[in-house]
């Protein structure tokens, strides 16, 4: 968790930039002139944008709470640089590392660095969403559940496969038959 905690000033500065961008955008909302209205469509966004800028300033100038002072600040910055580089190869690195260090494996996942693990999961979810419509709900879901659970270290492979397919099929049937919600069928001839 602490890997993703940034100094209060950094957060305030990043948010401040976004707030300024939002406010500029808010001032570009056209005025509504057809009828006389007391509150223009841009009024509230502009007020909110200015408020957010003020709040970011306040946060920037605030003394951070003593607890959040991070002792490991420098290492964090170092690592965040190489994170971007290795994120892509995380999957392969993960399997390699798992075989070398089976002695003390974490309860979830395979990598030593939890941040890479997060990147892998995000990648898996993104892949799931990408395949959701073309592949269809049932195959994509079964693949995602089984694959992710296997990767995270769920040992009983048969149970895993059964749960993946079972949940996907049950959800599909429940949604389409019971609730009339059509999930994508994809490649299955349903």
């Amino acid at each position, binding site marked *: *968790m602490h890997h993703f905690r940034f100094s209060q000033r950094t957060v305030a500065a990043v948010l401040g930039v976004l707030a300024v961008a939002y406010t500029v955008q808010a001032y570009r909302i056209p005025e509504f002139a057809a009828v006389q209205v007391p509150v223009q469509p841009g009024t*509230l966004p502009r007020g*909110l944008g200015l408020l957010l800028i003020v709040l970011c300033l306040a946060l920037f100038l605030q003394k951070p709470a003593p607890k*959040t002072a991070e002792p490991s600040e420098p290492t964090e910055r170092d690592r965040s640089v190489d994170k971007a580089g290795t994120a892509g190869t995380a999957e392969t690195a993960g399997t390699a590392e798992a075989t070398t260090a089976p002695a003390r494996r974490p309860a*979830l996942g395979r990598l030593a660095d*939890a941040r890479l693990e997060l990147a892998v*999961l995000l990648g898996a979810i993104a892949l799931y969403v990408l395949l959701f419509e073309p592949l269809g709900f049932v195959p994509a879901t079964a693949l995602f559940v089984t694959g992710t659970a296997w990767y995270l270290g769920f040992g009983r492979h048969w149970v895993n496969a059964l749960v993946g397919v079972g949940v996907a099929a049950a959800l599909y049937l429940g949604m389409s038959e019971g609730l009339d*919600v059509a999930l994508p069928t994809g490649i299955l001839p349903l």
Partner: protein
Amino acid sequence: MDALNQLFHGFGVALSPQNLAFVFLGVLMGTVIGMLPGLGPISAISLMIPVAFTMDPTSAIIMLAGVYYGAIFGGSTSSILLNAPGVAGTVATSFDGYPLARKGQAGKALSVAAIASFVGGTVGVVGLMLVAPSLSALTVSFGPAEYFALMVLGLTAVVTLSGNNLTKGLISGTVGVMIALVGIDSQTSTLRFTFGRHELYEGVEFLIVALGVFALAEVFVMLLRRGQGGGDGTITSLRLSRRELKEISGPTGRGSVLGFFTGVLPGAGATVASFLSYSFEKRLAKDGKTFGKGNIKGVAAPESANNGAAVGSFVPLLTLGVPGSGTTAVLLGALLVLGVQPGPLLLDEQPDMFWGVVASMYIGNIVLLILNLPLIPLFAKVLKTPQALLLPLVVVFCVVGVYGHSFSTFDLWMLIGFGVLGFLMRANGFPAAPLILGLILGGLMEKSMRQALLISSGDLTTFVTKPISATLLALAALSLLAPLYGAWRRTRRRQGLSEDDGRGQDEQPKATVGGTQERENG
């Protein structure tokens, strides 16, 4: 006692075997549908409408009412077990319910929720019976200015309750309102912040943000924590000790009454009621600093309030014919199709119907309790699922919930985005509750602000010259100033006394789920 006679007559209607079966069916269906993240009371009721059309109107509304409070109760189950509030009204329940579940006390949390829901619902029904006729007069006096003030109060209450850093809370709330304003402006049809994506024209769905910021972010935290400190699925005991019962009796009682009256106000509803009740109890409790870390009072307060409010929202529906919320609007639609015109005349013209519904609510609440207490161990088994398997399954439920709503993969990408946002917020100590509430109230807030200013022809003083609105706004200002004053006093005291005094006072309730624990250990 005319009302009492009427009520007995109503019980006669509700206790007919046929209607009893419908109450049971409604509550059961509502609970099951409500448990699925993404399917709330509105979807549950809409799904049951085709069934209702085949019945006579009284049975139909009895069943639909059962679906309504069943769904609200069911929603709290997924809030507690998975931190996945599918319904806005149960977001506040997850603040303490989920930490309790993680501590292995899921059973206890669910029991408290069941009992508090029962009390809230029952108090609500008594209130509906006693005050429905006279309250309709008061609600009419609530104009847009008063609504605006009420929503401001709801928002500030949540901002101040959620954390040590007021600035961060305010930022969260502001961003929440900003998200609410995305889409086509309802009054002038101006496009705001849609970036040319037609998917954004209708705004950002509450569900996407809630599932992303709460459930998906929780998945990331679970992974980072490597499955340690997760609930081990031991349900401990469902039973509450006498002391615990005594402990929750206060919050439950106050929450029920508060919830009912908030529910009566059109537009406010279960969500505002649950947040208000939660923040009120946090202030009131001597052990307020343990709120957000798994305090049973933090489950009892919002649960009693949201059920009280659910019943309360029937008051304007049945007496004025004005739906106070999206859910009751759907109910109104169903009633109209069934040939019933709710309104001031309903009580006189169709007393069978009105009192039958009231009586069936009593029965429905009892059914809810009987149905749910034995099923709690079954629900809590969810936590026994190994986390490696549970993790992808939670993702799938989020995805299904969002996709089933909009059928758009664009929304799924937004879901991932909000998941990452929620995770970063939690890691950096930004509370998520104000964001959600800002999103829920933002649109309504702008609407009532506009209406109020339209009535006063642009005169801003309308908000402070109306007594009710002025009082509510003063309360809001007070709730913002009180913590500032408290912080000022603490620093004064800290300078004089030892360092660690009053340290726990300003803990993050929401961050507890992941951040605080780690921050304190690490």
